[in-house]
């Protein structure tokens, strides 16, 4: 032992008996811890807010983390121009009510100015990457909260809670930092940023149970409603200027809800009569199709679709 300066450790007293920690409490507490770490260590964090249930839960955790003070960072939405009007209305009302700042990165304006070109299939999800990265760079955001969960997809199962991105926003799965205990290393070079996923350890069911427990407000399209839809590639899509129906696709009226909220061109509805949070939880608990498999066309492109998009700087 070399020069060691220390005081003597004291013995512990008798302590109260242990107590069961419900899983939602453990997940909430972890999420709040992560959000506070980012607020303390980064200069300019931003929270990606799509209006979907995961981002709504993430925002709820952020409100809890800093109460009674307001959330100390803005929200950002990458608007594909093909978002559900119900979701945009929900987003705007929530931002107004909570007095938050919202940054909107618009895919439509990139298309209008010729910086991006519409894809042949009309899907705009892959077009979100460039406006997202530009908005991060323009606003000098150094930490970007995303609502991604590891149970969603195989590539996400391997991503860290703090995920370093290079100046092109790229994720390199082979160069990830080991993540130990509850110690997160967010050091990065100028121009780089860190994506942070406070809901990494949550499952779809956890999110819904938490929505119920906390009374988190969600867009109405998550609950069953009558809607005109048409079938494409096995999914029920909403008609609209974005590109449907066409070529003999038939519009039908169905009672549906959405399990995820995204671009209208690639987010399918599921037939469902679940009209309350309790109904949705019951439905998910017995469902046999994963959330992305049921509703996201972009993940069906190839088995490695998500891995490729993440490498390119997608959420």
């Amino acid at each position, binding site marked *: 032992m070399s020069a060691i300066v220390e005081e003597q450790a004291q013995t512990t007293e008798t302590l109260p008996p242990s107590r069961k920690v419900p899983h939602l409490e453990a997940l909430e507490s972890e999420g709040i811890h992560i959000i*506070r770490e980012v607020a303390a260590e980064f200069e300019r964090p931003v929270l990606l807010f799509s209006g979907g249930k995961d981002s709504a839960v993430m925002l709820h955790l952020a409100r809890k*983390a800093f109460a009674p003070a307001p959330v100390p960072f803005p929200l950002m939405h990458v608007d594909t121009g093909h978002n559900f009007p119900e979701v945009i209305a929900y987003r705007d009302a929530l931002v107004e009510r909570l007095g938050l700042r919202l940054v909107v990165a618009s895919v439509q304006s990139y298309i209008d100015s010729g910086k991006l070109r519409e894809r042949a299939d009309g899907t705009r999800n892959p077009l979100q990457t460039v406006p997202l990265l530009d908005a991060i760079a323009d606003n000098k955001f150094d930490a970007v909260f995303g609502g991604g969960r590891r149970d969603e997809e195989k590539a996400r*199962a391997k991503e860290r809670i703090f995920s370093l991105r290079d100046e092109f926003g790229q994720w390199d*799965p082979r160069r990830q930092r080991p993540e130990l205990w509850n110690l997160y290393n967010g050091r990065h070079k100028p121009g780089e940023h860190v994506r942070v996923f406070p809901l990494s350890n949550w499952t779809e069911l956890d999110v819904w149970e938490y929505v119920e427990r906390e009374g988190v407000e969600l867009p109405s399209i998550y609950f069953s409603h009558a809607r005109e839809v048409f079938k494409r590639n096995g999914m029920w899509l909403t008609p609209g200027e974005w590109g449907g129906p066409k070529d003999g696709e038939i519009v039908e009226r169905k009672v549906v809800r959405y399990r995820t909220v995204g671009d209208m061109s690639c987010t399918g509805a599921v037939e469902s009569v679940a009209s309350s949070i309790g109904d949705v*939880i*019951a439905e998910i608990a017995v469902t046999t199709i994963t959330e992305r498999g049921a509703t996201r066309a972009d993940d069906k492109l190839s088995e490695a679709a998500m891995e490729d998009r993440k490498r390119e700087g997608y959420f």
Partner: protein
Amino acid sequence: MTSTVDFESAGARLDRDVELLRFATAGSVDDGKSTLVGRLLHDSKSVLADTLEAVERASRDRGAEGVELALLTDGLRAEREQGITIDVAYRYFTTPRRKFILADTPGHVQYTRNMVTGASTAELVVLLVDARKGVVEQTRRHLAVAALLGVRHLVLAVNKMDLVEFSESAYQTIAVDFAAAAEALGITDHVVIPVSASLGDNVVDASSNTPWYDGPTLLDHLEAVPVGVDAVTQAARFPVQYVVRAPDYRGYAGQLASGVIERDDDVVVMPAGLRTRIVAIDTFDGEVDIAHAPQSVTLRLADEFDVGRGDLIVHPRQEPRVANAFDATICQLSERPLRAGDRVLIKHTTRVVKGVIDSVSHRLDIETLDRGPAESLELNEIGGVVLRVAAPLAIDDYASDRLTGSFLVIDEHDGQTLAAGLVGDPFSARRPQ
């Protein structure tokens, strides 16, 4: 297809909180770990129809007969092409009794790095051996890493029992070897379960092929092992993360790392040693009387001291050590070796300080636990160092508190995580003389 869910009965089934068990798996190459994890997910009905279909399709494409359960856990394209697992992957499944977070760590390369990462948050580790090979060098290493990282509960899954005709004597030999190795490391809670991951024996459902075995199946054990006991029975440790300021309000936000804190408790703010009292424990939902680890709360204190991020709030007479220099055990995670004289950053709880590696005292042979002289610590090596830091840290030995006894060693220049650090020498306390 229209949903025909019986909402009332399904809702009733879920209408209660379950506990969370974080556990990790480790095994050597070809022990069948991915198959075991796939079997656990499959037989606990945690794999949904479309995922299973995709795996069946991929199995057929590779010319396999039946479903290769290992494909359920092989995540990245590079891994599928090479048939290996690159990195720690996290899996989630729920039974009516518990929710599980599984850190699935590969065994072949960088085993220490991956297993240290996976085990750092685990309360239980499942090790795998091949029933034909028994306890091998890699098993002893994995066991030692689990012991080092303070994992209380160990499970040895003796896999491929079908290939030794479910022989009781093969199982017994391995069980005796493993018990000896575990107890030498001070691990008292260990079970040895004979399984066949590919056929499903004793993973979720009890096997009729092992009538001589009367212990739990793997899932039975995962559902029954006590969780979260350490965190609340230890001394209270509250690292301040963030100061919440609002008009007429100043609160100290953090997550209770261990122990219990109550309103009106006398406390000490470390490392300065300031005495004060908790006047309120605030949450978004209002004040509470008591907070237990691992809750995130905000504390208000009676005195207006200059308390900030990096400070540690504890009870009097239970103070941690305050040290400018201390012995630590290092698990080297980076390809850049760690040498005496290296200047680094130390991230301990919510505090980051500059530090220097004063000396490298030894390298640990993780198989024999012998200590040898060392000039440096290379990737995947474990050893002892003396660390000096630029500002005093309030520390506990890792063996007594996992969160206030751990730290990261970070490269000052490029920000990479170089090493995982454990305060003190966890093995010196545990090894029988």
